């Protein structure tokens, strides 16, 4: 069934995490009959188990809906669901490039948050028509009028264009769909022009190879066509084109303005790069479409199998995971303490947590992750500049001329009561105050320039806890800045544990060393012998703690009837030890490697 271009729309739903974006998408699918109520599960578009469990969206998803509007026409609406968390903003950016409009969802009780602003800026960068929706108006603490005013004042969208909705109760669904067909412009592409289709995601299907998610902007993509990827120059023959309803459904062709997928026997995801342009080999487009902002990992950590025999499995798992998580980068790493593993780059802490969890769950691995760090740029006395994403690899102080660290502009949105707390926290974290702006609804937008390293160390959790959960945060990388940094080493039972090293601000190093040693003392379980823990800066010990030896572990009674139970208990104890990593002859749990994250 083909829809004339004038009746086609492509939209995205954008929102701060938890504002009800995915629930709203569910309602749209239901209202348009795309998913029958009996097939309706919550979060239809969240396909990963992890997404449903955590109630968050990680991957962008696309779906086509048909909607019979009040004007009598049946419109084809292509909806792309996007993640809300700051870590996944690259997914949002890709999705928006494939759209003409965006539904902006704002929670009626929370109001505008840092991520809302970031999303709106991205949408405006892509020249999208924004349809503002105030969601969750049914909640007792909702204040939709105030949020509407806020939208006009802060974002500049006319208050009368704001739609009140409750995705949970289905209020406002029709009004939203009507606004989409009325306000969002139809695609401008020409179905007869040379093909230009934008790749906005790709997945690996074990049976079909790479499934490439595309939006056709010009021309028409047909089954059997020979296509060329304009960036890589590689060509393929199209086996199947299709749409998402929401499951994959083959169609004859996709023409200008339509969203869907193509399968072309592509075996390697690198041949289907996100941001690339697909064109017709026989009649190529003159130029590729503009690509995306390149995604750069911001946070780095080592991932090691607790069982060294799982190294090969981990390697294969990372390869497979990278196929549908283009933001993940990795390279082999060898740690004296932890053996063979991989140094991985992530977009943020949540991304890191999710990757580790997916690797453990989907590939049945037991992993140990080291504390995340940022990438430093180290200028050597020789004049050479090298990147350092692993504290242990920081060259000797004697060789180092200067160390620069990545800086971000952090935007915090918070009720005015907590402004003092936010400023105190940000100053403790080496933040430079930039600006503060009062907004309607008792909201304050504060901006700081601060080191990214401070943000990844527990800043977000602190922000939340010192604002009773009200503060929201967004940040953007703005470059590198020279800082006075030193390497803090940790010795356990006399041997340095490379995976516990960290790079810290010199003025705070001694205090950090003491806190780290104290924290490790509580996290390293008692062993058969006493275990000294030392923190050192440049070979000088600055703190020492001792984990006392295990005092007693003996069962008083072990008679005939107790034996099964006792054996099971000891077996369980032994199983638990497998989650510990043996470093020398000390068994160290995962939490110890993350201790540096929360030293406050």
């Amino acid at each position: 069934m083909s829809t004339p271009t004038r009746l086609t729309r492509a939209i995205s739903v954008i929102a701060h995490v938890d504002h009800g974006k995915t629930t709203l998408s569910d309602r749209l699918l239901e209202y348009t009959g795309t998913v029958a109520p009996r097939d309706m599960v919550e979060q239809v578009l969240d396909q990963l188990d992890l997404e449903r469990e955590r109630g968050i969206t990680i991957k962008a998803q696309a779906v086509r809906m048909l909607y019979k509007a009040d004007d009598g026409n049946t419109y084809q609406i292509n909806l792309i669901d996007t993640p809300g968390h700051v870590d996944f903003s690259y997914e949002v950016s890709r999705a928006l490039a494939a759209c003409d409009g965006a539904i902006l969802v704002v929670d009626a009780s929370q109001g505008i948050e840092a991520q809302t602003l970031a999303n709106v800026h991205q949408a405006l960068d892509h020249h999208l028509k924004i349809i503002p929706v105030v969601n969750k108006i049914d909640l007792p603490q909702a204040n939709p009028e105030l949020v509407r005013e806020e939208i006009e004042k802060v974002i500049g969208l006319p208050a009368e264009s704001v739609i009140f909705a409750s995705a949970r109760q289905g209020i406002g669904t029709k009004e939203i769909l009507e606004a989409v067909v009325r306000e969002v412009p139809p695609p401008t592409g020409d179905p007869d022009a040379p093909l230009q289709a934008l790749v906005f995601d790709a997945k690996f299907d074990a049976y079909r190879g790479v499934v490439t998610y595309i939006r056709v902007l010009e021309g028409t993509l047909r089954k059997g066509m020979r296509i060329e990827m304009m960036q890589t120059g590689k060509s393929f023959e199209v086996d199947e084109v299709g749409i998402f309803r929401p499951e994959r459904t083959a169609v004859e062709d996709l023409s200008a303005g339509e969203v869907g997928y193509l399968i072309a026997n592509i075996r390697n995801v690198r041949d289907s790069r996100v941001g690339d342009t697909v064109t017709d080999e026989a009649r190529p487009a003159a130029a590729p479409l503009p690509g995306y902002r390149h995604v750069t990992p911001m946070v780095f950590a080592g991932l090691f199998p607790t069982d060294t025999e799982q190294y090969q499995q981990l390697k294969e798992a990372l390869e497979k995971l990278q196929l549908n998580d283009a933001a993940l980068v990795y390279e082999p790493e060898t740690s004296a303490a932890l053996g063979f593993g991989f140094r991985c780059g992530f977009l943020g802490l949540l991304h890191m947590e999710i990757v580790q969890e997916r690797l453990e769950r989907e590939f049945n691995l037991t992993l140990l992750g080291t504390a995340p760090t940022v990438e430093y740029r180290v200028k050597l006395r020789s004049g050479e500049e090298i990147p350092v994403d692993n504290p242990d690899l920081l060259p000797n102080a004697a060789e180092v001329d200067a160390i620069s660290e990545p800086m971000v502009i952090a935007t915090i949105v918070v009720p005015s009561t907590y402004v003092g707390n936010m400023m105190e926290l940000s100053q403790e974290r080496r933040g430079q105050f930039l600006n503060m702006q009062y907004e309607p609804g008792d909201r304050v937008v504060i901006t700081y320039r601060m080191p990214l390293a401070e943000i990844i160390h527990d800043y977000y959790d602190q922000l939340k806890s010192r604002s009773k959960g009200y503060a929201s945060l967004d940040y953007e990388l703005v470059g590198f800045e020279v800082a006075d940094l030193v390497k803090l080493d940790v010795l356990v039972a006399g041997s340095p544990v490379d995976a516990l090293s960290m790079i810290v601000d010199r003025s705070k190093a001694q205090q950090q060393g003491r806190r780290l040693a104290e924290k490790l003392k509580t996290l390293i379980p008692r062993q058969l012998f006493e275990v000294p823990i030392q923190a050192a800066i440049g070979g000088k010990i600055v703190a020492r703690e001792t984990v006392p030896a295990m005092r007693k572990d003996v069962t008083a009674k072990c008679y005939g009837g107790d034996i099964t139970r006792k054996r099971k208990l000891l077996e369980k104890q032994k199983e638990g030890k497998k989650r510990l990593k043996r470093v020398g002859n000390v068994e160290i749990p995962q939490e110890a490697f993350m201790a540096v994250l929360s030293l406050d």
Partner: protein
Amino acid sequence: MERIHSLYLHVPFCTWVCKYCDFNAYAVLQGLIPPYVEVLTREIEIAGTELPTGPFDTVFIGGGTPSLLTGGQLRQVLDRVRAIGLPSGAEVTLEANPSNITEENVESWLAAGVSRLSIGVQSLQPDALRFLERLHSGTDAISAIRTARSGGFANISADLLFGVPGVNLAAWLETLDSVLAEGVQHLSAYELTVESGTRLGQEVRTGLVQMPGADDQLEQYWAAAARLEAAGYAHYEISNWAQPGYACRHNLAAWNYKPYLGAGAGAHSMFRLDDGSTERRWNVKGPHAYIKQVSGAGHAPDGSETLSPERARGEAAMIGVRLLNGTRAAGNFPTERKQLVRAGLLIETDGQVRLTRRGVELANQVGAAFLV
């Protein structure tokens, strides 16, 4: 299957279930004792025909409080055991509460064939007895030992608890000395252990009761061990001491990985199969269900597990190392043995291993090392 020469009989009834007790025991069900004795007798009879059992070298009647059984009931049960095979030299132990030890009972137990009494003294300190919810006094316990001895028992064991909140080292040793002064042949001293499912467990969790620290517990333990050794008792298992020739044969058999048959509610059996694997079976725990099932089918199984020869060897070593004179059960684990010797937990001599003092304190760590 290896022939079975040990029998455990469980009697799950108590007048009062003490707050620290984690055994399969029930109060206020005493009306169930007569039917229980009937089906227990039946279970022994059936097992005797189905399994390679007897003659029995040891019988252990535990509980609960098996001394709640009358002389006639005990005789009925032991007669059934005798029908399978119970030579005159067999060790027949009855666990007894001091409150039940009267001249009449002693006479009838001896007549029924009981040869060894294990008396639950626990403590002689009034505060400790109150804390432990024991219904007898210290004086009752001492006179119970005397009654048993003068009534004709020549093999008496006393159970004591140390590490009881509020009992300091001196008070604990006072209890120990008074019991030893009565000339018992065997003594079990257990650290009071907090089990999560008990009322004591609840009290500790909620902070109502604070247990002594590990250092205090070990101090009481080693002080007792020194006293006992000086008094001529050999420390043959982590919590057990005996005068020469009076180690509990029934428990030694289990610790040396010999098979045993268990009968009664919640009783466990252990069989050694010809391929070297071990089978463990256990009965349903509740006395009502037990009575019903045995009256019907003649069995009351609740579960079982079979350990491969390899796992069975690990289990044998886990149990065997608790024997302080040494064991050969760890013979199949040279690597683990070497590590434990290096860690100072085991001493190896002539192919035998035994726990060091530190090894005793960390016996679970040693035992776990052998589990596959």
